[in-house]
């Protein structure tokens, strides 16, 4: 069985980088200086992943203010408003208010993906999935929710095309809203339409990852989504539920708790991963944290990556 490992979200900022951001907000550091420092820290995050032998590498998304705001930059028709809880976390994002037809007035900002830091065949770009983005917005304009999903999908596709213009090895669509509550057939159809719009305009492979919630909320519809890999948060999805279905795609199993500092025993994770993959009858399994590592302090996030590296090393010995 082939086992790959990688991350599925942003990396936490180090204490030093946090200080740089604070200095910048107080006017003690200029825009350009901060940008340069972010790149330096991103290099370190890339190095940590390379050393762990991860198949795909992210730039850590260290300059993202939250997991969705950059998509709305350069768009007319949306205002960014008050704080809203990011799923079941003690973390808050700023809610986009859709007040008019969304129209692009500036190109997506390429600084949101430091592609040049990563070799092309391992580059991984992470963006929100259209349905999740629509659910997290306050729609005061589009009469039908599906219209908003379609428009957002176009914008995500354009962002992906711009950020991935120099090539990527994997695109991830992060879709916590698909697992947050039971998805009706109609909702699943709308979500699939959104993913299809992005998938038709982006390079493959595409991973659709569903952190924080039980992915069986989206079963069985999710199994037919036009993606190459389905990602599950095993701290929120029961392995029993996954065994009930024939997935028919590659799977990403988020066995490492991306929100807890406990370092999982390497052999136990590997055994659980192989055993579940066998029962799901998949020939290639991807493994890593349950979600982004932003919800962990930086040193803990680094340790998690090392654990993942150790899992991959042991897997290679099998």
């Amino acid at each position, binding site marked *: 069985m082939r086992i790959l490992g990688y991350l599925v979200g942003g990396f*936490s900022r180090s204490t030093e980088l946090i200080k740089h951001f604070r200095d910048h907000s107080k006017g003690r550091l200029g825009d350009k200086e901060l940008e340069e420092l972010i790149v330096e820290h991103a290099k370190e995050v890339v190095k940590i992943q390379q050393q762990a032998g991860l198949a795909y590498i992210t730039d850590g998304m260290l300059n993202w203010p*939250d997991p969705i705001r950059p998509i709305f930059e350069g768009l007319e028709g949306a205002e960014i408003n008050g704080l809203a809880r990011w799923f079941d976390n003690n973390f808050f994002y700023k809610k986009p208010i859709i007040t008019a037809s969304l129209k692009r007035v500036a190109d997506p900002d390429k600084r949101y993906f430091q592609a040049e830091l990563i070799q092309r065949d391992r580059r991984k770009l992470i963006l929100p999935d259209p349905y999740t983005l629509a659910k997290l917005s306050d729609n005061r304009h589009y009469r039908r929710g599906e219209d908003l999903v379609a428009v957002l999908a176009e914008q995500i596709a354009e962002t992906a095309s711009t950020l991935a213009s120099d090539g990527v090895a994997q695109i991830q669509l992060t879709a916590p809203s698909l697992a947050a509550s039971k998805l009706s057939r109609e909702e699943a159809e709308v979500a699939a339409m959104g993913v299809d719009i992005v998938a038709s305009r982006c390079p493959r492979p595409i991973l659709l990852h569903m952190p924080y919630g039980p992915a069986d909320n989206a079963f069985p519809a999710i199994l037919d989504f036009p993606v190459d890999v389905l990602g599950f948060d095993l701290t929120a999805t*029961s392995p029993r539920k996954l065994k009930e279905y024939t997935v028919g795609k590659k799977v990403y199993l988020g066995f490492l708790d991306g929100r807890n500092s406990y370092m999982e025993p390497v052999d136990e994770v590997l055994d659980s991963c192989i055993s579940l993959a066998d029962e799901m009858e998949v020939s290639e399994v991807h493994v890593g944290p349950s979600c982004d590592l932003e919800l962990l302090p930086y040193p803990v996030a680094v340790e998690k990556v090392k654990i993942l590296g150790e899992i991959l090393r042991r897997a290679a010995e099998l």
Partner: protein
Amino acid sequence: MKDKLFPTMEVGSLKKSPFLTKDLERAAAAAEVWGKLLNVPDFKQLVNDIKGNLLGERELLNWASIYGLKFFESAGLDVIYDGEAKRHEMYEHPLKYVDGFSFRGLVRVWDNEYYLKAAIVSKPRLREPYHLDEYLFNKQHTTKPLKIPVTGPYTLADWSMDEYYITRYGMSDPLEARRMAKHDMVIELAREVIRPTVRALVEHGAEHIQLDEPAAATKPSEVAVVVEAVNEVLKGFNVETTVHICYTNYSALFPEILEMKVSNLSISCSNADTTKPGLGSESRAGFQVVKLFSDYKAGFRLAPGVVDVHTDFIESPDLVRDRLIYAAKLMSDPAKIVACNDCGLRTRSWEVAYEKQLSLVRGANLARSSLS
């Protein structure tokens, strides 16, 4: 409080005392202005001591507590505290008194805001009841009933990481392991940390305890644990009890919340409400949640926030009155409504916060008159 219609109470925090600044001239001026306004006894002593730079941190914080108490007392609230003047914040502060936690580093809450997050690494043990000195000091400086805010066990657990309880369970089903470990952690914190803290307060005369549980509805599947822990902390204490849960989807708390054995549940409503006076459902959009508690026939009183703590808009007494009357109507019993703020006033200036508290008291008076 029990016999008065629409009794008024605050929720907890105030912004740092205006005289706690390094600029001695400004500090002395602020101590004088607020000392006069709030009728703080011996405030001139503080002004002189600030001018002479004679006070250490401890003395300044004691004065901050006194000013906090007088802030609410002079505004006319029925139940008060000191604005949490001596606490750094609600998570890090209590954990400093508990063995078994280890701070692991900063974690983002939003944008550039971070908090120092800890992990539990062994069985928690309370070194000393951490709010007792604060309470005993406050008791000496007011004759008003005090309500002591205490961070609840669920919130302490939910905002922490777990490197101890999770080791009790294997990796084959991380979901189930996490669920059981979280339950163990919350209940043990309730028994070993929060209950002894509350017991010490009650044994020294505290008559009203407030458990703050802002994380309570974060994970709907864990509401039963929240309720079990609150009941575990408070069982057998013959005192007034309030649980404060703010800015959340309250429907996620049902029906488990009905099993919570408390006197009052304090919730935020005004932040989601309009500022138009009136008793119509459109004007009172933020108070529709009260109906949920009424429909389920909740056994406790509800303390809906009739003052929004996240804006500088000063609610008129008429608006406060309408919010209270509307909430009372939805509950079908005005005796089941307490007049309260949405949350602590930490984010507002003292000037704005004071005006808001005056309106709270005046609005409650108007509501009382209109029903008598």
